[in-house]
């Protein structure tokens, strides 16, 4: 792949460039600042641009500027910080993927490959999280109870909860089914779940979905019996130390209907 690396920490940019070049990628340059990146991208049409963020999230403005520039090149934000809120904000600003600098070159290359594959499959706009970034988001969810989700992911969640199919959601939002599958996969990562039903249950517990009984029944009706059983187990009141039924759900949150 043809890539441009932009990072104020030139040591990181050069190290990344050296490894990517060693592994067969075409590194078109190491630059700093949005203007240089935009100029470089316009001249050489890379397959991806890697932009470094420091611990305070500086360079978010450049991410936004690059996304608005209409260059149409996938942007990967490489973050020093594992703050899930910052990572979600960067994606909202227009980055296509987030990666933590504490991860290795293999994970960065995997992310680049995913971006290329999803782009070739027409999944424009799908957001990608590196494994470390998604793990950070899950940890954040464990602390705050509410994972950071993008506006589009929230829309997908809402439609899933109303029992809409992947193809129907895709048609409603004007994107391909591959894009919706990617959104759902990203939500799985963030919530640490493996099925749509689990995901909806977790999202409802986190307060990201209002409790609406009937649409949920529609969704449940199309899912395998085993998933329904798992949901029933996960949603059932758990005995507390004192032997009484109790739930970790915040006050005011309803139970998942099934």
């Amino acid at each position, binding site marked *: 792949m043809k890539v441009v690396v932009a990072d104020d920490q030139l*040591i*990181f940019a050069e*190290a*990344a460039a050296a*490894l990517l070049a*060693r592994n067969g990628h075409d590194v078109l340059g190491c630059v700093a600042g949005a203007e240089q990146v935009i100029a470089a991208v316009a001249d050489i049409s890379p397959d991806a641009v890697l932009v470094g963020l420091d611990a305070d999230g500086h360079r978010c403005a450049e991410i936004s500027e690059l996304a608005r520039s209409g260059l149409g090149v996938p942007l990967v934000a490489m973050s020093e910080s594992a703050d899930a809120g910052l990572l979600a904000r960067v994606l909202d600003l227009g980055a296509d993927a987030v990666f933590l*600098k504490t991860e290795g070159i293999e994970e960065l290359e995997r992310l680049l490959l995913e971006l290329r594959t999803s782009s070739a499959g027409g999944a424009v706009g799908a957001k990608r999280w590196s494994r470390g970034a998604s793990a950070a988001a899950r940890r954040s969810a464990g602390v705050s109870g509410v994972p950071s989700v993008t506006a589009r992911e929230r829309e997908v969640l809402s439609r899933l909860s109303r029992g809409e199919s992947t193809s129907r959601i895709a048609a409603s939002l004007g994107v391909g089914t591959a894009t919706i599958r990617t959104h759902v996969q990203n939500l799985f990562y963030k919530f640490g779940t493996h099925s749509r039903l689990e995901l909806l249950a977790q999202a409802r517990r986190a307060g990201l979905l209002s409790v609406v009984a009937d649409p949920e029944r529609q969704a449940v009706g199309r899912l395998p019996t085993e998933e329904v059983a798992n949901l029933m187990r996960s949603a059932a009141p758990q005995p507390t130390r004192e032997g009484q039924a109790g739930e970790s759900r915040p006050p005011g949150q309803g139970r998942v209907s099934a």
Partner: protein
Amino acid sequence: MPVSSSAGCTPDSIRVGVATAEPIVAEGLALLLDADPFLSCESATGDLVSALGLLENGKVEALVLDETLLDMASLGALTDGLLRGSSARVVVLTSEQSPVHGVLASALGARGRRVDKSTGASAVIEALYELFGSSPGDAKRSSS
């Protein structure tokens, strides 16, 4: 993290270790240092204890160390390690936000250099050259 060995180093090459929590910097910087004929990157690690061990057991003569691995307590271990190793040198990679800048300079003394991360690998190589004299080969011959 992978350990690289220099293919093109000279017999007078300085044996260097890299210690940072960022695997891409560790592996990539090792690759870049190895490309210099007077440097041989022997080890890359993300752990400060392992890094100090490299100095103590003489496996490396110089350590390129990311400041993010350091806190006030480990600075003491670093200076002790430097005192024990007769020819050990340290290049510390720093950024503006570092909380340990003030004590770092005095802790390192003449055996250390600070290199800002906003500079490139060439600044690290230059700092290593400075620590070992005008040329690495001269420095090694003069210290033996």
